[in-house]
């Protein structure tokens, strides 16, 4: 492998303005100074976990170049992705491939699905001649457990949701990109198909060294994929670390609450306590974002949480949280307080 490839986000901010947002001050900060790097070496799966409206899909759109952020930079191998030209642009387009939530939306209903394979074969010169191209396509179908005969020559509406999503994976397989940006790819799939999809994703990393940014609202999916997990809330990454650490030993009070609310698929592990009915009506945003945005719901809230936005603090090796509980100050004591819940 030559030079490792790298997608780097630095202080990426996305603000939406408009009359429809007048109720919350005319401005919505969807992504708020988010920084992280995805590297092809070593390849790994990074899950970005968040609830609806947390800004996770906006981040996917920005990385794919579909949306230009209002602040910060996104670079690919050191070059700003919104200023790429010629060869660099083609390389980026080829190296970074998307998989979206609803694969129906991205197929052109007037073309057979074959077209989404033949176009990149031509564009990127993946194979010469029809026979070789076809072999390439068939190989890719096998890698995702699809029979070519079930799919080739068909129109998108003739395929099931699971098939469509696997067609997209087959395309990814054929292109062997360095990066996959997957935005909620399994949320519309049934449990059994979902697992197959996730297994293929794991294989891709192992066999071809693909690095994936996997965006999901589902913590069990993030745990299953392993690798690194980042938790996003109200446009900010609040916690980051190995999936095992973040999900089984969450540090940020937000993550702790989130994980406590995930129903377990085990009738012997039902919730025994009740949760408070909070009567938050349609989102009330305070004018100041220069604070911890979880302060009003946090059981450990302190004076300073209202005054400045917490930076990432070390929780343990390779595990950080944007929470003052983990400040250099009362390190050990506060950690224990936070972990018992």
């Amino acid at each position, binding site marked *: 492998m030559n030079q490792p490839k790298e997608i780097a986000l630095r202080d990426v901010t996305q603000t939406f303005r408009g009359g429809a947002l007048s109720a919350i001050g005319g401005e919505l900060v969807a992504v708020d100074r988010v920084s992280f790097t995805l590297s092809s070496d070593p390849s790994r799966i990074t899950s970005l976990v968040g*609830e*609806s409206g947390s800004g996770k899909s906006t981040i996917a759109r920005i990385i794919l170049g579909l949306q230009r952020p209002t602040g910060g930079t996104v670079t690919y191998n050191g070059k700003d992705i919104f200023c790429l030209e010629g060869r660099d642009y083609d390389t980026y387009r080829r190296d970074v491939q998307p998989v979206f939530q609803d694969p129906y939306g991205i197929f052109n209903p007037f073309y057979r699905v074959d077209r989404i394979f033949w176009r990149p074969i031509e564009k990127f010169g993946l194979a010469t001649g029809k026979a070789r191209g076809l072999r390439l396509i068939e190989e890719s179908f096998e890698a995702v*457990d699809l029979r070519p005969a*079930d799919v080739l020559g068909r129109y998108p509406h003739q395929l*099931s*949701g*699971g*098939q469509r999503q696997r067609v997209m994976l087959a395309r990814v397989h054929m292109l062997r990109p360095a990066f996959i940006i997957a935005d909620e790819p399994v949320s519309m799939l*049934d*449990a*059994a*198909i*979902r*697992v*197959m999809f*996730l*297994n293929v994703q*794991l294989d891709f990393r192992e066999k071809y060294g693909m690095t994936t940014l996997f965006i999901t*609202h589902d*913590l*069990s*999916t993030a*745990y*299953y994929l*392993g690798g690194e997990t980042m938790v996003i809330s109200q446009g900010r990454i609040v916690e980051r670390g190995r999936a095992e650490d973040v*999900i*089984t030993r969450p540090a940020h009070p937000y993550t702790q*609450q*989130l*994980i406590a*609310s*995930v*129903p*377990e*698929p*085990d*009738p*012997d*592990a*039902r*919730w025994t306590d*009740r*949760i408070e*009915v909070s*009567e*938050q*009506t*349609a*989102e009330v945003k305070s004018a100041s974002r220069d604070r911890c945005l979880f302060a009003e719901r946090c059981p450990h809230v302190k004076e300073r949480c209202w005054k400045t936005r917490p930076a990432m603090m070390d929780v343990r090796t390779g595990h950080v949280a944007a929470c003052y509980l983990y400040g250099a100050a009362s390190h050990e004591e506060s950690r224990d307080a936070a972990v018992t819940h």
Partner: protein
Amino acid sequence: MPETLLEIADLHVHYDTVRGKSRAVDGVNLTVYRGEILGISGESGCGKSTLAAAVLRLVKPPGYIGGGVVRLHPRDGTSIDLLSAEESDVRRVRWRRLSYVPQGSMNSLNPVMRIEDQFTDAITAHSNFSKRDARRMVPELLRQVGLGAHVARMYPHELSGGMKQRVCIAIAIALKPDLVIADEPTTALDVNVQRLIIQTLADLRDQMGMTLIIVTHDMAVHAELCDRVAVMYAGDIVEVGDVRQIFKEPRHPYTRALIHSIPKVGGVRTRLGGIGGNAPSPLAWPQGCRFHPRCSQVMARCFADTPRLLPLDTTANGSGPSPIVACHLYPEQDGSRVTTALTPVPQ
């Protein structure tokens, strides 16, 4: 002996499509007992939502009831077959005796009506209450789902998704029905809100003694909320059992594969299996056992013989109620041809 509230026998629901007849629900037998929370699970397209709608005789064209019986035994002792009764009789039962929280109902609240008017609409349409009486009932109904009385004067856009879903549940219980059917009540909600809805639904049974049917593909919701779970595959039920049995000792190969496809949060991470192949089409279900093309334990007779849904005799090991399974792996079923799934299961 548990009291039977609803009996579904040999229910068929078909949709006429340009490509032929789609047998969405194809011969379902199921009994619902008073006071229980019954889960109906299955993958998309297995017919679970169609089944829920058919129980209320709310199947819309091009769908129609192809046959069967859905008998409700309400508190007042008047049994009614919802499929053969006059529409006016069904209307009298709907909402008062059994009500429905359809899929995505929280998005179907009228955006230009105050919440209380949406209550009074539903109440006056299905009962003899005056508008004024109906309005008086609203604060108490809101309280029962954990909402404050001030919500009555609000519009849907002022509420969060979870609040709207609770409003829909409150509307469904307005006339104190015996049975509430909720179709995917937690889908598309964030986890905190999902938990709140699960808690609200559990309260309907625990505090108000209602009977619930929860239709969802989310097995974790079944584990959290239900007493019994019916597993649907390809238009029919393949297994019914106590929730613990379904999760700990699933009998049908499909149920097993389904349970083993659920990733868990925490614990040892093992590679899960999933189910190979594709879900079959309701236009042409496979012959014999409909799961046979994807089954890891398929036998010769599975190709031609359709297994019947019959109770498994577990008196040998003595614990728990008898699971009901439709699978040739359990040959002991064959001796008991007279038994049908309608026989009450001791609980």
